């Protein structure tokens, strides 16, 4: 069943067309890759899907709802989680609070209940805390629950960010360059990790990545874009052989390396 269906998506910034006429169809449960040279418009696509930009044209259909033009927090509540290219954790808040806060959309109590401290308030705060700790436990982060992210190593921060995205119980997880800035040892950990998340959380993943090792190892289906246009799509094996992809990445002389 199709989970995310993007049709004729276009985004213009003034005179610049960042994304043009994009079509994308993600089946439920798949693991997809989105690649392309720098400035190809990959993050722009993520920003449109997560509601940060309103597309100029086209529709984004997620799980039966048209979501373009919806506010980001609504989109997240519908079931799209994401991470960022440059980690955007709340650095002066504990890891536990970071996880807690991304459940802000279903707190289960009304505006006045924090002031009145009703039974329902305590019940839900307890539920949120337990769920957060459980999630941290799954990611083996329970020991740093009360640390501040700014004091943690980069690789751990990445993991916390993924955990935070998952705390909102998304059906679709968008990973924006999860391997950026990681050492090669960390990268192979990350590959196992993402595969494990995909299998255990029953989730669809769409990722942007520059490290081919990650993409080729993980993704079942890859879409390549350049200058906002799709230039190729297919399985990893097909993409590796595609002359246009090689041209976009390596220039015209690229055949030598293919």
């Amino acid at each position: 069943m199709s989970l995310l269906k993007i049709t004729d998506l276009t985004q213009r910034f003034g005179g610049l067309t960042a994304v043009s006429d994009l079509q994308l169809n993600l089946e439920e449960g798949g693991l997809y890759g989105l690649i392309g040279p720098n400035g190809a418009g990959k993050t722009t696509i993520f920003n449109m899907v997560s509601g940060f930009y309103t597309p100029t044209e086209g529709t984004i259909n997620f799980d039966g709802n048209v979501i373009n033009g919806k506010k980001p927090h609504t989109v997240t509540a519908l079931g799209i989680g994401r991470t960022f290219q440059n980690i955007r954790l709340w650095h002066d808040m504990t890891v536990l609070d970071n996880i807690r806060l991304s459940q802000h959309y279903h707190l289960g109590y009304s505006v006045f209940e924090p002031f009145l401290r009703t039974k329902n308030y305590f019940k839900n705060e307890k539920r949120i805390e337990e769920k957060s700790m459980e999630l941290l436990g799954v990611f083996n982060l329970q020991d740093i629950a009360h640390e501040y992210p700014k004091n943690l190593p980069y690789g751990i921060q990445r993991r916390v960010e993924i955990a935070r995205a998952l705390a909102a119980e998304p059906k679709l997880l968008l990973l924006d360059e999860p391997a950026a800035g990681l050492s090669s040892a960390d990268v192979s950990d990350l590959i196992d990790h993402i595969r494990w998340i995909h299998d255990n959380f029953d989730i669809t993943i769409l990722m942007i990545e520059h490290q081919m090792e990650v993409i080729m190892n993980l993704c079942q289906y890859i879409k390549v874009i350049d200058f906002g246009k799709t230039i190729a799509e297919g399985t990893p094996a097909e993409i590796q052989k595609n002359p246009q992809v090689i041209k976009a990445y390596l220039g015209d002389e690229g055949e030598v390396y293919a």
Partner: protein
Amino acid sequence: MGKYQQKTMMIGGGILFGLLLILAHFKMIDLYVQSVIMFIGVNIIFATSLSIVNGYMGEFSCGHAGFMAVGAYVSSLLTVVLFTVDKETGLAILPASMSIYLFPVIIIIGGIAAGIAGLLIAIPSFKTRDDYLAIITIAVNFIIITALNNMDFVGGSRGYMGMKKVIYGMEGVMKFPYMLFWVITFAIFTVFLIRRFITSTYGKGIIAIKQDEVAAEIMSVDTNHMKLVAFMFSSGLAGISGGLFAHVIGYVNPGSFSILKSTEGLVMVYLAGMGSLSGSVISAILFTILLELLRPLQIFKWVIIPLILILVMQFRPEGLMGDKELSDYFPKLKKFYKFK
């Protein structure tokens, strides 16, 4: 986390409060000392309410006194019209005996009016932030003041009075240090409410806005909703402090709520440190006492105080407390009150 100690703390505080009221009732505390205590209370409400927006949410509101003015005028107008004999409105509308019960209600109504006025900032804050929002808050402060200056039914720039008569009326029914009681009660109430707000997952949404608004919005925090709540909550409490202030002094004029008053609030919040509630309380107390101690210097007071603050900033560029609470510095206090 000792439940027992907490209970002791509450009972101890209650006894202290009761003792204070009894002493005040039998005139065993100097009226001047009483008024200083009341100013401290008013400033605690004013400073902590501003710290919601400036400390926790990280916006820079410099027009907080405007909301104080709204609360002060609305509540003063209500009490004076309802409970005093006026040349124009004739007899008092309600008997003085009711004023005892209605007084806190009217103060809260003033707060609600100020909270609604908070929309003037809350709505622009959806699209604007940082310095641009700061300008809007300054403009709102000026607008409120100049609007009051042009309202003849509240005396325009001459000011509005008659609140003392209301208090005398209340005392005529039953002798009791009403203002002292209500100021302290509302101050405790305010700190209590803000603490509850800020420690809940819901309220922490505004801290997320301070640290990274984009991440907050994408991680399911409805930032517009949170801003609306924070601004209205904050200006509503400022309105309460204004209502109390007006009834303590017995006289208000638009000039008392100028940008200078807002600046005092900013000083208290930033002296404390951004995002420290106990810090705001402490700096409100220190600042009020400092103002009183330096009173004999007259105009030089306002030269010395800013100079002191400039010096403090040089040595503690993150404020006295940073974003820490008292219990972070003195862990033993955790037994007595819980914060985080």
